[in-house]
């Protein structure tokens, strides 16, 4: 829709006074939007585009300004084993956190929504990690994972198993930080399911009770399909979070040992603010942006299509 068609969309309103009036209202609306848009454009749209441009430039060092280097940064990325390691780690991290935290959050919501003994306490406990700073709780988790006298190993040893070096063993570390992420996220997602469950008509449940349906059957055939829009909303959020959660990596492992727990955003942070390699960091940002754009397109074209029965 062009500017003219949008100004003249009411064919009988072509009088110059009315045109002035429409124009005035439009300018007024733009003025209302302006302050917010200065910040939105300045810190989201402009940097996203500028990053793409920066990723084609070298890193300015000292008196040498940035010069155009084409796809050199991307070439370096393809040859960088740490990049691939972080990408693969991020893939596994997402693949584990998303389904497990969604399954847990549905279970929690169903439990809290039932008239279960102490549901106030249950709801409070599940939700608690959401309000705690990740960096603070990561400190406590470090203690749980400490070799020797850490809580998990103390429990394992009490039952006669060997303790593990949870954060020091390259084969275990990614799993260990994934557990922390799930713990942090599940209670947050529970809230959305809880809201959706409370919006469902109680007559479904009554009907199911009359028919003698088991609670599993009722969940699978009635609640799960009705919760689909919530699941898609949560899924998209969980996907974004999988690329965004790095606080616990910075505190607990610093990506180690041997980059075994490095995630993309963590590596981007290292390259950008430890090695100060701006060109390469921009290329890494571009990859993250591409992944998020993919999530956006997925939501728009695939997932939203499936929930149009709302």
């Amino acid at each position, binding site marked *: 829709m062009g500017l003219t068609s949008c100004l003249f969309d009411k064919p009988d309103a072509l009088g110059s006074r009315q045109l002035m009036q429409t124009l005035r*209202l439009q300018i007024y609306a733009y003025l209302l939007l302006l*302050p917010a848009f200065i910040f939105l454009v300045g810190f989201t749209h402009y940097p996203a585009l500028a990053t793409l441009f920066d990723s084609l430039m070298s890193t300015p060092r000292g008196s040498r300004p940035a010069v155009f280097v084409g796809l050199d940064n991307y070439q370096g990325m393809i040859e960088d084993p740490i990049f691939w390691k972080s990408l693969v780690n991020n893939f596994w991290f997402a693949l584990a956190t998303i389904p497990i935290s969604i399954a847990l959050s549905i279970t929690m919501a169903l439990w809290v929504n039932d008239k279960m003994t102490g549901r106030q306490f249950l709801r*409070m406990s599940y939700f608690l990690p959401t309000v705690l700073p990740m960096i603070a*709780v990561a400190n406590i988790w470090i203690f749980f994972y400490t070799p020797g006298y850490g809580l998990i190993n103390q429990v394992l040893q009490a039952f006669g198993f060997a303790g593990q070096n949870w954060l020091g063993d390259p084969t275990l570390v990614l799993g260990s930080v994934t557990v922390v992420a799930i*713990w942090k996220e599940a209670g947050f997602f529970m809230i959305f399911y809880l809201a*959706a469950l409370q919006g469902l008509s109680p007559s479904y449940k009554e009907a199911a009770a009359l028919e003698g349906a088991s609670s599993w059957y009722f969940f699978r055939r009635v609640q799960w399909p009705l919760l689909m829009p919530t699941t898609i909303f949560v899924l998209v959020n969980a996907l974004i979070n999988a690329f965004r959660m790095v606080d616990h990596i910075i505190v607990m492992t610093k990506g180690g040992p041997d980059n075994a727990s490095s995630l993309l955003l963590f590596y981007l*942070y290292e390259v950008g603010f430890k090695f100060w390699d701006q060109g390469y960091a921009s290329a890494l940002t571009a990859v993250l942006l591409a992944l998020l754009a993919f999530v956006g397109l997925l939501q728009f074209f695939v997932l939203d299509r499936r929930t149009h029965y709302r």
Partner: protein
Amino acid sequence: MRAPDAHAGWLSTLGAWLLALLWILPLLYACWAAFHPSEYATKLVLTAPLTLNNFSLAWDAAPFARYFFNTSLLVTTILFMQLLLCTLAAYAFARYEFCGKNLLFSLVLIQLMIMPEILIVRNYQTLTKLGLVDTLFGIGLPYFASAFAIFLLRQTFRTIPKELVEAAEMEGASSLQVLRHVYIPLAKPTYLAFALVSVSYHWNNFLWPLVVSNSVGSRPLTVGLQVFSSTDQGIDWSIITAATLLTSGPLLIGFLIFQRQFVQSFMRAGIK
């Protein structure tokens, strides 16, 4: 009642409670270690004496008072700016017709997908140009316009009955007066919901403040805690957990008191 259902009910109650205990275990442990002398930090002895010593040691070991001040100022500034800017934008989207409205709204929604922390490298350069690196204002700047707030407020504003607006206009109220006396009072629950979500998000935010701040004067609590527990301390768990509880304290106490409002606010924010 059929027997299998009763059985499942008993089992799931047990499961629910076990999971809940597992979920608050980190907090329970933190309380244990923080309130007992450090020799009991790693073993559970019920007769261990209680102490507040760890808190005073932690409090003295780092400028936590300053960090508290910084975080409070940061969180309030961000919230104030968000409410101001996003109310105006949401009002425009909810009430007026203008060219490119859908396009502009899509541009707003992009921020839900690409959050400022993804763009730390470029945004850091912007702050450098503005001379705002290592300032609290610089930490807050990228969050002043929140797509989430605009979206949430627009949804609420759209449900406000036309008759109320027309009645106010009949009495000669200007556009901003209508906003102040009709729209904003009716959206109070949404404002509360967003405020709680925003405050707990920015109280806990870490990566961007870590990048921007490098002195005591601009460091929020989360970054201060990280500096404290990674360099100043060895592995004295009692003091680290005490510092951990200190940092999350206000939010935690607020949450325990206003638990209902918290959960309902997050629920309200989640329903589109």
